[in-house]
């Protein structure tokens, strides 16, 4: 009881003034190559201003190679981690997996786990927006949330026409947690 009282005392008086800000979901690239901040929450996107190219995201130590018509996921030691199906058109590495498109859908394949399929025709590009979202470019711009258990496809706002920016290099998602390995998401 004494311990509980001490804890209660220390915590109840120690809730600091909160920091409140507009949530940043990530970055999307428009057809002209310019980057836009994407603000809001899932299903409620607002485009922020055009920004310089955001810092590269590293999702994995693996990398993707195209060998002939096939797409391979290659480990740092050169070993093959995965070979994508023959109809895979484009791919991007995500945390503990790979996201690829076929003519009819987008597939989120977790290594040593399940696949999740999302209907999406005519996908031309997949780009990491943040550790939690991937931009899916088709006849409209989509955002795929890839967090475990929260996977869902959304529509992104169409960016206004802006002056083209220099081409951006391939971006990859980061591995691991951004702050602490001990975390719980809801």
């Amino acid at each position, binding site marked *: 009881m004494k311990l509980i009282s001490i*804890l209660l005392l220390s915590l109840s008086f120690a809730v*600091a003034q909160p920091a409140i800000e507009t949530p940043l979901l990530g970055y999307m690239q428009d057809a002209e190559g310019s980057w836009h901040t994407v603000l*809001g929450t899932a299903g409620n996107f*607002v485009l922020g201003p055009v920004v310089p190219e955001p810092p590269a995201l590293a999702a994995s130590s693996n990398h993707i190679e195209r060998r002939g018509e096939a797409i391979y996921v290659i480990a740092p030691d050169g070993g093959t981690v995965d070979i994508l199906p023959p109809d895979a058109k484009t791919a991007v590495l995500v945390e503990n997996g790979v996201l690829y498109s076929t003519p009819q859908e987008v597939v989120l394949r977790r290594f040593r786990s399940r696949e999740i399929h999302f209907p999406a025709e005519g996908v031309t590009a997949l780009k990491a927006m943040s550790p939690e979202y991937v931009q899916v470019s088709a006849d409209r711009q989509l955002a795929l949330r890839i967090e475990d258990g929260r996977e869902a496809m959304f529509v992104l706002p169409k960016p206004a026409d802006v002056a083209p920016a220099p081409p951006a290099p391939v971006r990859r998602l980061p591995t691991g947690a951004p702050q602490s390995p001990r*975390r719980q998401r809801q």
Partner: protein
Amino acid sequence: MIRLLLLAALLPVAARAQLAFSLIDGSTETPLVSGSSYTLRSVEVGEELSVRLRVRNNGVAAVDITTFFVDGPGFVLERPLPPYRLQVNENLNGTLRFTGTEAKTYSATALMNNVSVTLNVSVVLGAKLTFAAPCTTNSSGAIDFGIPYIAQAVSCPFTLRNENALPVQISKVIVAGTGYTVQNLPDLTSPLGVGATISFTVQLIPQAHSTISGTLTVNARNYALTAIGVDPPILQPIVDFESSAYASGQQRRVTMQLPSPSLFSSSGLMTITFEPSYTLAADDPAIVFLETNSRQIPFTLQQGQTAVKLNNSTFVTLQTGTTAGKITVTLSGLPGGISGNTFVLTIPPSTIAVDKTIATRFLDRIELVLTGFDNTFSAGSMLFRFYDANGQQITAAIPADFTLNFRKFYVDTPGGSTFKVTLKFPLSNGDVTKLASMDAEFANTAGTVRTSKLTF
């Protein structure tokens, strides 16, 4: 005695003087003077000419009409058979019809009592006019375009064929009458050879819901055109926003169709306006059609189709934002006959929507980061509980009220209610190693939401 004889001799003259004899063609009336010749308008072979002959009693006493006829090949006078007593100011009308079978000048004598005039008609070669559906011939002999809808074009094909033994010069093909036009008319420079044809179209776009009369003129020959314009049936567009309950934070697929095929090809705009329920929220920029990132989306109707294209696609996506209020969707630019152009989506107040929570323990603090939105703009009241590794609550609920902080945030960053709040719990006293998880309650005017246990 001599006086009586003179009076008797002058009586027919007096009677003739009080009778007015005239010829009426359309709206033109021509007095006919005894002993004179008159040329009626020329007609084509086989074309019927119809005019009226009128006798009017302008005198002060009734006069007997004892003679009233027209004598000549091709002429027929339809009138009451004499004798006929014509009262003062009374008219006696006869219909004179003429049809010529050869290209030449025909003559006839018209006799009314003792008034005699000569009537001449020139008959020329012409081409035979035929037409096809949807036009028909009505009971009056007019070319009937049916009962078309206002502003909906109806076209009939026409053909002129020279069935004579000589070429015919077609010099004029025109229409008169509101909404009628001649289309696809070929060059008329050369004469129409024997057995040759030319084709053209007469189109009517009704402008009014009433009888629409017109005239097609080929050379000197007139053909009556008629139609009855009517309003098209009212079509109520069906705009579907998906059937689930409206709420903030949604992306709803919008489709539009008509209950029956469109009578028109047309285009318009679907526009949304937003009326927030709270004064703190002047507007919400997230409430847009995502495909244009604006509050307008173009739509197009194709004649004969029920599906309506939105932004040239089968659907568009409406984002409902994060503010309670009313989203009004209006259709504009709709053609006549389509109505019902306003739809209201009510976004109700709701408890705080938690999109993501992360609880992390650092050496000196526990940090809770929560992302979400509050469509009532009243967030700030919170409650926290901490648990040990066995899930036993080891603190009393810790309340906090950051309503003013949130209010200031919303005032400083207007537009929607999304937020990311970072809450820090400094660990300065006590044995904090037993802390293993926490949960939190967030309240607003719509209620309270509680997180699951967040392990750190």
